[in-house]
């Protein structure tokens, strides 16, 4: 695929609980590794989803934002909002719920729910001071 004419970004939010812990490590080791993040806590997360496209001359739009919104809702928000990310979300099973892993996993959940090859960027804003971005898999089979 050539360069996109445009990238559209929509921001979503959800609130969820989590803690950072690697189940393979003991309590003392986890505490040393993650500090206060080892304690169960939560965030008001922002999720930014960017899709690329060219302007359809008929509609003047490069992406159907309503379809984007319902896809993000079904693929991610309905699974995570007001949940414990470590316990209640099978789609996050087995991953440590860092911002890095959430950004990557949300990409994997969203990519098949959107028009093929359209997803450009997923950003997880954990707090006003911490943002994590993912731009796709290293060998992204979606690109044409």
């Amino acid at each position, binding site marked *: 695929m050539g360069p996109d004419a445009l990238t559209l970004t929509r921001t979503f939010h959800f609130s969820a609980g989590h803690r950072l812990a690697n189940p393979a490590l003991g309590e003392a080791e986890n505490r040393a590794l993650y500090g206060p993040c080892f304690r169960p806590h939560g965030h008001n997360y922002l999720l930014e989803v960017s899709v690329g496209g060219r302007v359809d001359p008929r509609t003047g739009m490069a992406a159907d934002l309503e379809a984007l919104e319902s896809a993000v809702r079904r693929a991610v928000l309905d699974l995570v909002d007001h949940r414990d990310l470590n316990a209640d979300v099978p789609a996050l099973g087995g991953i*440590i719920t860092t911002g*890095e892993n959430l*950004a990557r996993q949300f990409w994997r959940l969203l990519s098949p729910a959107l028009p093929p090859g359209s997803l450009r960027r997923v950003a997880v804003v954990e707090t*006003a001071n*911490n*943002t*994590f*971005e*993912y731009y796709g898999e290293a060998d992204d089979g979606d690109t044409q």
Partner: protein
Amino acid sequence: MKRPETGLVYATRRFTFSAAHRYWRPEWSPEENRKAFGSLTQVHGHNYTLEVTIRGGVDERTGMLMDLGELKRMVGEAVTQRFDHSDLNEDPLFSPGAIPTTENLARGVWDLLAPKLGSDRLWRIRLWEEPTFYVDYYGP
């Protein structure tokens, strides 16, 4: 604008500091300075916001790109403690005559952090001088 790579995670941490500066070339006359820089010739200050973006693979043991607490300490020691409540014109980065513009300060921050983080891992310095203006620097 540099394009990010797929397969990597990009993590951004935000910092703030407040500092004073003025735009002034000592070899120019006051008139020339005022003509070029206007009100920026007077000493004034800003609440700067600094965003440091690092990139890399995720360590599967920790789920993290790097310990962001460690990044916070590093940037605190090398950058925010150095510039917070300081006169940027007196800082050795600028005192040889370079003007502490947002552009030069962003480049200076890169030069302070790149040796500590590695220029592969350091991706972008975004420096906000005020809420309506920022400069991005992706390294030399």
